[in-house]
């Protein structure tokens, strides 16, 4: 019988622990497929964060390091600088990257570290139980802003792709989502482009994936998808935020 679809070799057989309707699994699959398709699985070294994707090291079929909360870009710097020809990536959530690890991601981008960061923005802390993140939207409820986030109390949500785009070392930043097949295909293209630019030695590459968190948003998976399109996309516009062509560089 002809095989029409099979799991990427980039993923192990470990069973994912993610909640129903969570986008982590999809994004894992996309990264795994890109690494496999580019023939990079044997070379790749990934770094996972503290957050819901803390066990990502069990799922990716490549060498992995588990970093302290927020420090994945520093860990990846240590790896990439000493293994400059190999693909290196970090996989981080919004609490990890935009809050406790803000300095690490900004400076990795500033230095133009030649690794790729996949940033999962679901506007909330997932693993610790739905607390407010720097990316939580105004009015959005979380366990540490139970009446909804206010600008007065917590400031406006952080647009990380735009922030990093101001740094010359960041050569590529794109925001995507995986709520349906067309978006998913775009997301995969973005991830592939990020790795291609990394392997070409252009600089720091960044893909922000808007993601759902049905559990902590308190919604069904379908409703969560709709909520993401209706609420997150207007504040966090999809598309290429920055792309420096190799020639210009």
């Amino acid at each position: 019988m002809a095989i029409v679809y099979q799991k990427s070799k980039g993923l192990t057989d470990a069973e994912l622990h993610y909640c129903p309707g969570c986008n982590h699994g999809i994004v894992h699959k996309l990264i795994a497929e890109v690494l496999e398709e580019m023939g990079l699985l044997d070379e790749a070294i990934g770094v996972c964060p503290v957050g819901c994707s803390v066990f990502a090291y069990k799922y990716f079929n490549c060498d992995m390091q588990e970093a302290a909360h927020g420090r994945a870009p520093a860990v990846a710097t240590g790896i990439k600088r000493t293994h400059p020809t190999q693909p290196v990536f970090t996989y981080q959530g919004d609490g990890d990257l935009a809050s406790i690890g803000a300095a690490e991601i900004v400076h990795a981008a500033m230095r133009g570290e030649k690794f790729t960061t996949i940033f999962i923005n679901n506007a909330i802390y997932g693993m610790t139980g739905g607390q407010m993140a720097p990316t939580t939207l105004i009015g959005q409820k979380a366990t540490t802003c139970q009446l909804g986030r206010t600008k007065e109390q917590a400031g406006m949500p952080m647009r990380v792709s735009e922030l990093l785009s101001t740094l010359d070392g960041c050569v590529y930043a794109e925001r995507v989502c995986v709520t349906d097949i067309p978006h998913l295909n775009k997301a995969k293209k973005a991830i592939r482009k990020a790795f291609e630019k990394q392997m070409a030695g252009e600089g720091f590459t960044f893909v922000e994936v808007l993601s759902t968190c049905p559990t902590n948003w308190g919604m069904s998976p379908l409703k969560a998808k709709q909520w993401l399109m209706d609420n997150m996309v207007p504040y966090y516009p999809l598309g290429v935020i920055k792309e420096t062509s190799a020639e210009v560089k």
Partner: protein
Amino acid sequence: MEKELWKGNEAIAEAAIRAGCDCFFGYPITPQSEVPEYLSLHMPQHGKVFVQAESELAAINMVYGAAGSGMRAMTSSSSPGISLKQEGITYIAAAELPCVIVNCMRGGPGLGTIQPGQGDYFQATRGGGNGDYRTVVLAPSNIQEAVDFVQEAFDIADCYRNPTMVVCDGLIGQMMEPIEWREIPKRDLPPKDWATTGKHGRDHTNIINSLYMDPEECDDHNADLEAKYKLIAEKEVRWDTKDCEDAELVITAYGTPARIALSALEALRAEGIKAGLFRPITLWPYPEKALHDLAGQDHVKAILDVEMSAGGQMIDDVRLAVEGQKPISYLGHAGGVMPTIEEIVESAKKALKEAK
């Protein structure tokens, strides 16, 4: 071998290069900034990696990444910066990664002072981060030892897959002294087949990790670490003595105070007072048995612990080792003030008089 005059911090940096350090990640802080300054110039000349990190937090995590992928990695800092590195150090210890950390200690607490201090003894020997872990701690008391120990530290780290610290103080970092680049005996080191180097055909993934969701598994992991620490305590403990054979008064000190104590010994002996020095070289593992046995000798009447610390920190280990066999008194200054030769002489006489 020809002697060369070197500044402590620069000698430490050069020693790292000679030990085959692949990468250094640092951040400026007085009084250790000459280490990153020197390496920023010389590491690239040797085809090695130097990165000035955005913070000590980032620097130690760069060490984690590089060490985890099989490289000889090092960072250095001074007291407040070492505090910031503690998170990384506990992760490195937990993930069993080899690396070298140099602490050029200054007086604390808080910002404290940039002058020499030894107030980080507890932090270094008890594990300054969370959880049950140990770092091997070497304490040079002159620049020759500093360069020898830095080179050995890489081997010790690789041998046990454990972070190894070299703690000196601002004076050792800043002063100059003639040294020889002598051959350090090499150890038989295990292959780093655990490192995340990319699979390259390996049939399994290598994972660097310190997370265990199953408490039983975490308990087992801790037991393994503990067994390793016991082995290190057996094999790596080091100390030095001077004039202890007939000493009535034994001074315990490490680093710069041990050096000042050498001059005090001379003065005391000149007055006919039988004084000796017991100097731990490894602060962890502590030379507990050696000190216990020395304190048990009949000729020893009293012990004087000298540190650059307000109330003494190593003195706790001295008490644990001596186990009440002989009276222990203390002389120390914190905040960057060094004990003087005269103070040590006076305190030694007083301790001896009280004991008799």
